[in-house]
């Protein structure tokens, strides 16, 4: 029982980690606090559902199609909607406030579109829901597959950011945009790419999540919140921190859901968040600012 709960907690945690990695790219590199982030996850989940039940195709095919689309969409959003704000902002704080406001508006637009299309009902589909037996525990194959894919995507991202030129440029912008500019890094392009990459990641997570969770059009906010908490917990801009924090959150939530009450999972998220705020506001792996 404990093993089973732990395994499904790790799966959930893997999703959170993936989602948070995308957000930490958007916030840490592009300096955009994106409150509409989770909406893209839900949109991707609906797209995967449509692949499966509308087109009778595997949602894995969706994994090849949806994230690139999300990449393009996010890139466009950044260039059209957010870059004017970046240009107009005098300080980093001003940009933060403006981006919070603009993306809060975007949240309601995207959510509104999904509500108009699908209503408030819960959706799910059964793909690969074959029980697998591992070391005495039973796990659904779809969960395990989602976890494996999340690990592959996360690892790929990590390698891309640490081993490639472009990745190094992106990380340099996260540390110090002004200095990055001085060494001839195109900060604007790097920011736009980071933002778009974040969008692609969250869409990938959306496809994976749809394979084993029920979802509805209102759920984006919750995913955004959890991603934000994980990013703060891990330390802004810190991919490894996001991974650890995501796993912790997934595990704790699953334990609470199973052993306490499923109605209290968000309360568990908040409890962890509070604890981090009180004990280590700079994040598990972050540095103190004072």
């Amino acid at each position, binding site marked *: 029982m404990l093993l089973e709960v732990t395994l499904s907690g790790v799966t959930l945690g893997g999703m959170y980690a993936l989602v948070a990695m995308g957000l930490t790219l958007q916030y840490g590199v592009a300096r955009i*606090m994106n*409150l509409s982030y989770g909406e893209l996850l839900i949109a991707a989940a609906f797209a995967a559902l449509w692949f499966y039940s509308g087109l009778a195709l595997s949602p894995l095919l969706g994994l090849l199609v949806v994230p690139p689309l999300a990449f393009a969409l996010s890139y466009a959003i950044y260039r059209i*909607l957010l870059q*004017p704000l970046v240009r*107009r902002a005098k300080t980093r*704080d001003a940009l*933060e*406030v*403006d981006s*919070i*406001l*603009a993306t*809060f*508006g*975007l*949240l*309601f*637009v*995207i*959510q*509104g*579109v999904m*509500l*108009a299309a699908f209503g408030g009902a819960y959706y799910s589909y059964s793909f690969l829901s074959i029980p697998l037996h591992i070391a005495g525990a039973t796990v659904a194959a779809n969960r395990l597959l989602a976890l494996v894919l999340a690990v592959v995507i996360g690892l790929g991202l990590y390698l891309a950011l640490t081993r490639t030129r472009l990745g190094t440029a992106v990380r340099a912008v996260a540390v110090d945009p002004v200095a990055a500019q001085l060494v001839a890094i195109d900060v604007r392009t790097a920011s736009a790419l980071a933002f778009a990459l974040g969008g692609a990641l969250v869409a990938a997570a959306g496809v994976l999540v749809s394979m084993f969770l029920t979802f509805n059009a209102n759920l984006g*906010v*919750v995913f*955004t*919140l959890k991603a*934000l*908490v994980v990013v*703060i917990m891990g330390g802004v801009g810190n991919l490894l921190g996001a991974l650890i924090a995501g796993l912790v959150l997934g595990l704790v939530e699953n334990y609470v859901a199973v052993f306490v*009450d499923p*109605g*209290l999972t*968000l*309360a568990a*998220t*908040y409890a962890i*968040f*509070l604890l981090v*705020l*009180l004990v280590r*506001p700079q994040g598990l792996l972050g540095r103190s600012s004072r």
Partner: protein
Amino acid sequence: MSRRETLSILAGALATAILACVPFLFGDYGLSLAINIVSYAVLATAWSLFSGPTRYVSLATVAFFGIGAYTTAVFAETLPWPAVLAIAAVIGVVVAAIVGLSTLRLSGVYFVIFSFGLAELVRQLVTWWEVNKTRTLGRYVFTDITAAQIYWQLLALAVLVFVVGFLIGRSRLGLALRAIGDDETVARHTGIDTTRAKVALFVLSTVFMTLTGAIMAPRWTYIDPAIAFNPVVSFTVLIMALLGGVHRLYGPVLGVVPLALLFEFLLARFPNHFSIMVGLVFILIVYAIPRGIAGLVEQAVRRPA
């Protein structure tokens, strides 16, 4: 007191007297529209009381509004009305103090994030409590409070929020907040306990939101967590305050009136696409009028000089 201040006070008193007559002048529809407008006027003014000077965007308006509404739903039948309001205020204060003390000593993002999910958290907690402890989900609100009484209470609350805002503006706390809004590090170096100032103001501003919820609850005869904690309310308040302008006490009201009317129209015409429309209106405001109508007015007044 300057001449301008005396004039504003007189104008405010006159406006209040005229507004108090609304229930006698208009029918049910007019009154319900007026209730809507005045309640949003209180919420938006209270919102910018805190978020205006500190520039901390609070997304949690409906968390407090909903707490107030639910308190009424639970206690209105058994307790006298003033006691219901007092309980609502106390619960709101406790929640606001927890949020404020844990986030406001840190940078603004933490507060925004905390407030972002707060309504959802409270909604889930109330749902959990109702399902597991009282075994009901959704309550009927039984009171004999009439629409006109609700309107007058809200109007009184609106007057109160203006008076409080006016007094804060002239007080030490007001100066502290303006300094914090300009440069928090410098504010600390001039001896301001910035955390305390922010928490005090946040708590104060949420009390008005909680009371608005408590007073408004009898408007619905039936309440469940999804109605009481509808996130669109937080969003609407934010839009109204920003459209009006948060740098002046009278600013938010300038945004409330046109938008309340617009939303009334949109809700009637496009009930299924309401949140899309509101989102688009909002984005338009953020881009086109970043300093709000009050900012435009000031600019127009200043330009000829």
